[in-house]
């Protein structure tokens, strides 16, 4: 088996789950005949037929609601948001209906909403968003943000099999930029377990999605130029957060930097920092810091986008500050 890209890994995960369980079906805009805006679902229509790969009207509320109704009836729908920015069109039905159906009505709602998130691609304000924080605040949802091809596949398979609604935020910058050989067999990665992406003892960078790759790059620079052994913890899942994994790395290195591409205020880093304070304050040798996007809509021009989004050099600088503290 050769290497596959992050995008191909997602497609593999979809195909394997659709073959395994006839209740799994896909719906979304332009996913059938066209194969999806990024071609994630390419070939699925001819393989599974129009009943299982449904091209929908432009109506995020409509097809998310329909997915919920189908999920109640025992189906396992997978919705595609053409760009994850448009998940906000379905914000009301996701947070008010989908997230509460089990609690209020004991209705099963096993469904996945997946789609491309993230910047660094000159997509401008409406094709670059990272909406995870908007949903992190909603009990009833799970949130997955894979960083590697193997995780993208294994976490997607777990998300489809999960009995709760899962938001699966893929990173479009990674779609064709990272590749690896897939583990053999039925590769399922459990939700809620972080992954140590790099071992270290001097400092922990806690991050997810594209932030993992920027942080690994920063860790190499810090090792080469500063002799620092930086640990990188890939959260993988934001809901539920892996408290044990976070506490373990903080107790090991006593210094923590949270990195995410989403804007700083109200972002996921704040929640991680609150948990570190609650669960591991005595183990800290320095304040917990974060590197995140500046609090502005994401602009288009390369000079502007690069300025707003966290860059490797930002992570290096913040790490040096923490290491010296």
């Amino acid at each position, binding site marked *: 088996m050769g290497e596959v890209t992050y995008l191909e890994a997602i497609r593999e995960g979809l195909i394997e789950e659709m073959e395994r369980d006839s209740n799994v079906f896909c719906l979304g805009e332009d996913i059938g005949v066209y194969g999806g805006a990024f071609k994630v679902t390419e070939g699925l229509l001819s393989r599974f037929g129009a009943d299982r790969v449904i091209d929908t009207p432009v109506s*995020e509320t409509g097809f998310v609601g329909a997915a919920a109704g189908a999920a109640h*009836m025992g*189906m396992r729908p997978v919705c595609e948001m053409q760009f994850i920015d448009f998940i906000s069109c379905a914000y*009301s039905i996701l947070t008010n*209906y989908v997230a509460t159906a089990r609690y*209020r*009505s004991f209705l099963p709602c096993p469904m996945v909403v997946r789609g491309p998130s993230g910047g660094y691609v000159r997509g401008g304000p409406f094709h670059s968003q990272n909406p995870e924080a908007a949903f992190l605040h909603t009990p*009833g949802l799970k949130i997955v943000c894979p960083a590697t091809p193997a995780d993208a596949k294994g976490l997607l398979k777990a998300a489809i099999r999960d*009995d709760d609604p899962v938001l699966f935020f893929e990173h479009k910058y990674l779609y064709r930029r990272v590749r690896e050989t897939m583990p053999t067999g039925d590769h399922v990665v459990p939700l809620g377990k972080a992954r140590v992406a790099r071992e270290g003892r001097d400092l922990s960078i806690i991050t997810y999605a594209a932030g993992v790759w920027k942080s690994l790059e920063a860790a190499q620079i810090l090792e080469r130029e500063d002799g620092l052994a930086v640990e990188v913890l890939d959260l993988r899942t934001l809901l539920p957060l892996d408290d044990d994994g976070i506490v373990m790395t903080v107790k090991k290195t006593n210094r923590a930097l949270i990195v995410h591409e989403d804007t700083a205020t109200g972002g996921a880093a704040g929640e991680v920092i609150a948990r570190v304070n609650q669960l591991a304050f005595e183990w800290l040798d320095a304040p917990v810091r974060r590197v995140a996007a500046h609090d502005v809509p994401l602009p288009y021009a390369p000079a502007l986008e690069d300025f707003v989004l966290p860059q490797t050099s930002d992570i290096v600088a913040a790490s040096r500050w923490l290491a010296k503290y």
Partner: protein
Amino acid sequence: MAITLSPPTAPAGLTRSQLLELYYYMRLTRTLEERLVALYRQTKVVGGLFRSLGQEADAVGSAYALDRSRGDILSPLIRNLGSMLVQGAQPLEILLQYMAKGDSLSRGRELNIHIGDLDRGFIGQISHLGDMVAVMAGVTLTFKLRKEPRVGLVYVGDGATSTGAFHEGLNFAAVQRCPLVVIVENNGYAYSTPIARQTAATRLADKAGGYGIPGITADGNDVLAVYEVTKEAVDRAREGGGVTLIELMTYRRKGHAEHDDQSYLPAGEIERWAAENDPLDRYVDRLTDILGVTADELDAINDRVRGEVDRATDLAERSAPPAAADALIGVYADPPVMPLQWYREGSDG
């Protein structure tokens, strides 16, 4: 040549006992709501109380057109208590729910009639109007994908037809030719907003044309007319004919909820509807004048309803509230229980 007279055709193709059953459900709806008002005034209903006074025919007649034995499913709106009773909800369950008891269908998590039971074929609504059209599109899409001869019915009010969710859900269902019947209960008001401020359309059923589906307007206070028009749409849906939009004309004689003083209404409007167009009065006239149902028969049904509601009230009043910590259970399938936050005794954080 001998001439044999065929027996008079029962209205709407229903048997005499079915016609009386329609009366039973309408009477049960009204009596149960009157009991809820008494309990509300005793502060035993802890939240708001929503009445369907004057609208019992539209909920009962439409739900009666579904076939429970085939697994049809409906999603009621706030004034469709009658439709839930037809699907098998018990008066005790409604009382427990309004009184926030621990053994209510929602275990005290939800208000009023925001409750469902998939086995009996009703799915609880949420307060965000129009969303249930999209959800029922998915329920009925599943019927279609699985080639099951089942039908779904979803209720919205005149106000919900202005929402995006109504449009997206209805359009999705229409494109997919889902076996779905959408009932727009036009009772003249969305809270205090009259229909003329809700839409420039003269008939809400006309909106169906925009989705390429049939749209029909019917008298919502004539239970047999409601049944007939819904039955036709249900049959069409079951045969693969797709979605129908039905506008039922009725009138909301109580406020949005019990607290609403209805000061925005023109003088005499409620009284005129109550005197001239009460769905129960109209149906009683029909039953007695045309079908020869006697006052004694109707009294017997009224007595049966009162006895059922009395017994249910006694049981509901004796029922306990939920255990407080049950609030943490069942947000997710996994984990089954949410952790207490650290500042609360007993937490592990």
